[in-house]
């Protein structure tokens, strides 16, 4: 029994030392290649959204520490088992260490922007783990007696014989070795931290390593009865921008400058932003270039700093009516200042769906203005906010003929069935979404083959700034059919039926699809 405990301890100690060694190597070279961060990131990516949602809901911003804790528990169990089994068969040590290294290396490679060299810390750590474990297990293996190992003179002559022999292994020798390894682990771990801090710059605080504070004003929980797909997974969130390469921004040197027609120019670091009270809100964002029924729309839970107080702190001068946001790659987005000050949850976003903002969605900071199309209020990779006037400055898309005020139009989309679907006769469910951010959806209606409009069932929503899911039960008869949808917002206005192209201020028209009932 004591040997089993010693085996388990050996496994854990060896892994601790190996991980610490890998972390110190990574800290000195590529911090994002550290096995803990890499595995954590990979686990987050691999976690089904539903599970993540539950975790985020139940644990809030503690989901990251909880995740890291979970990884450590799995690691402890795995290494302890490797140590115990390794007592009998040393091949288990080799296999365990190999698996250990492969998992870390695979995780490192799965990260965005991974390089082959990112596998080195994990493989190095695994090799060290294996070697240490082998050595420790050797320490807690019974010494061979002279009878069955006559050639191993040294062991016969060693202090092992002189000391009172343990019934199964040399406890003192093992404990000495174990203490040595534990001390080494502590030293290496502390060194890794020290190296990371010393490297202060750049990659030391990667997106994966970033822990965002909890919102001072959290999002209201999603109401019961919200359908699947209400929140769009990060990987499915549309991306419309002009960036050829995703900007990589160093958190340590990133600054947001608020200037132009203001009394007090502000310059804020990322930490300055995080020091302010944060809000978290479910908001639907869509692109002006979306065709009727198109895919460029999604809903996320955004964590950010309210923008209006920042603008007020800067002190807006009389006559200013436009805020020009500039991104790291030079995009400019112009937003009406009266819109930003009207009480809506316009914010500088730092988090999306419980995670730091993904790189493609504008890491580290993007703007978000509920109720406006992205091109008019949602600049990504934000670096600068300039207070000016519409008369003086045309933003990027306005220069290209798009409208200056990009207010979202009331619209709806059929997601099920798919166009040209072949379905069976009888009861079929038609389902989709409708949106009018800021105004809210009052109703959705369906027309089959150009016939009467019939009300669809609306599912509950958390706020007026999100889309509303809807469904409609259809008694489908054989033949080809067209299905059209239209929505009304809570001002009473019905979605425009006339066809308009996305240019210059957003498409209109009732999404109409064709299906065949067999």
């Amino acid at each position: 029994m004591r040997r089993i405990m010693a085996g388990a301890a050996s496994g854990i100690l060896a892994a601790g030392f190996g991980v610490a060694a890998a972390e110190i190597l990574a800290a000195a070279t590529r911090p994002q290649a550290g096995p803990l961060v890499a595995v954590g990131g990979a686990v987050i990516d691999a976690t089904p959204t539903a599970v993540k949602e539950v975790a985020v809901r139940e644990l809030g911003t503690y989901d990251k520490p909880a995740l890291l804790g979970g990884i450590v528990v799995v690691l402890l169990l795995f290494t302890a088992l490797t140590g115990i089994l390794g007592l009998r068969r040393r091949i288990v040590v080799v296999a365990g260490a190999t698996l250990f290294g492969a998992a870390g290396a695979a995780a490192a490679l799965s990260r965005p922007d991974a390089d082959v060299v990112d596998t080195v810390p994990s493989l190095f750590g695994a090799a060290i783990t294996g070697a240490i474990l082998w050595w420790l297990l050797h320490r807690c293996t019974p010494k061979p007696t002279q009878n069955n190992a006559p050639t191993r003179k040294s062991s016969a002559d060693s202090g092992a014989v002189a000391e009172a022999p343990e019934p199964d292994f040399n406890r003192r020798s093992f404990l000495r070795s174990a203490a040595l390894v534990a001390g080494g682990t502590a030293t290496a771990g502390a060194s890794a931290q020290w190296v990371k801090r010393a490297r202060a710059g750049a990659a030391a605080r990667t997106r994966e390593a970033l822990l965002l504070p909890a919102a001072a004003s959290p999002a209201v929980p999603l109401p019961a009865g919200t359908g699947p797909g209400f929140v769009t997974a990060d990987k499915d969130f549309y991306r419309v921008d002009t960036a050829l390469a995703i900007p990589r921004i160093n958190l340590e040197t990133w600054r947001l400058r608020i200037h132009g027609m203001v009394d007090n120019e502000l310059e804020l670091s990322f930490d300055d932003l995080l020091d302010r009270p944060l809000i978290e809100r479910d908001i639907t964002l869509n692109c002006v270039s979306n065709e009727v029924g198109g895919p460029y729309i999604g809903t996320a839970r955004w964590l950010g700093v309210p923008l209006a107080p920042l603008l007020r702190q800067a002190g807006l001068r009389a006559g200013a009516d436009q805020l020009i946001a500039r991104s790291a790659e030079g995009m400019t987005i112009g937003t009406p200042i009266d819109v930003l000050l009207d009480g809506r949850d316009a914010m500088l976003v730092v988090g999306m769906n419980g995670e730091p903002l993904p790189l493609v969605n504008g890491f580290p900071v993007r703007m978000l203005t509920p109720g406006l199309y992205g091109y008019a209020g949602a600049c990504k990779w934000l670096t600068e906010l300039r207070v000016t006037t519409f008369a003086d400055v045309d933003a990027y898309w306005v220069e290209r003929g798009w409208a200056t005020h990009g207010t979202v139009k009331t619209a709806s989309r059929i997601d099920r069935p798919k166009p040209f679907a072949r379905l069976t006769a009888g009861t079929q469910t038609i389902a989709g979404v409708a949106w009018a951010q800021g105004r809210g959806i009052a109703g959705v209606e369906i027309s089959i083959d150009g016939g009467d409009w019939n009300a669809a069932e609306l599912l509950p929503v958390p706020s007026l700034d999100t889309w509303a899911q809807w469904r409609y039960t259809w008694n489908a008869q054989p033949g080809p059919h067209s299905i059209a949808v239209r929505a009304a917002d809570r001002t009473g206005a019905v979605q425009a039926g006339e066809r308009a192209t996305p240019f210059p201020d957003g498409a209109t028209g009732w999404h109409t699809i064709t299906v065949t009932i067999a």
Partner: protein
Amino acid sequence: MRVNKFTAMTAAVLFSISLAGCGSDADDSTAGSAAPTMTTAAPTMAASPSAAMDMVNFGPGCAAVPTDPANKGSFESMAQVPVAAAASGNPLLSTLVSAVDQAGLVDSLNTADGVTVFAPTNDAFAKIPAADLKKVLADKKTLSSILTYHVVPGKLTPSDLAGPHKTLQGGEVTVSGSGEQFKVDGTAAVVCGNVQTANANVYIIDTVLMPKS
């Protein structure tokens, strides 16, 4: 990418037809405005030589496609919008675009998950006697049947193109040929192939296909 351009072209043709009444391209000062574009492909993919090869269009008819990337009818513009929207930017496809509009298939084509469209040019429609064409355009059911016979599920690249394909109409089209020479149902020649749109591959053809009934 190749598939997208082709689709875009077909779509462009179809759209041109439907939107022909909206004013000439020359007069439309907005026609040159690029839309905010969607970058779905990873930057590294766009840069890879194989992806670039896939973008190559082929056929004599491609020469009629506008070359200015800012033009809505260009291959570059069409690749960024769904097929029906793409077609509407192309003056070669204006009859098809109005037919698609007439049949109420614009949204279905734009929001289909990935299709191949055989897009007859205006000249192809002109081969049909005027009285017959008018009758077909007025009969939504027949028109829809003819148009969906020009659409195949999935994006077919030129290397997948030869062979029989089940259409959305239900019947089968048969493509013969190889390389840059293809015929559809033995009658319609591909005059510009491999046009990409956001959701479809387009092959522009010189004759309207008729479902075998």
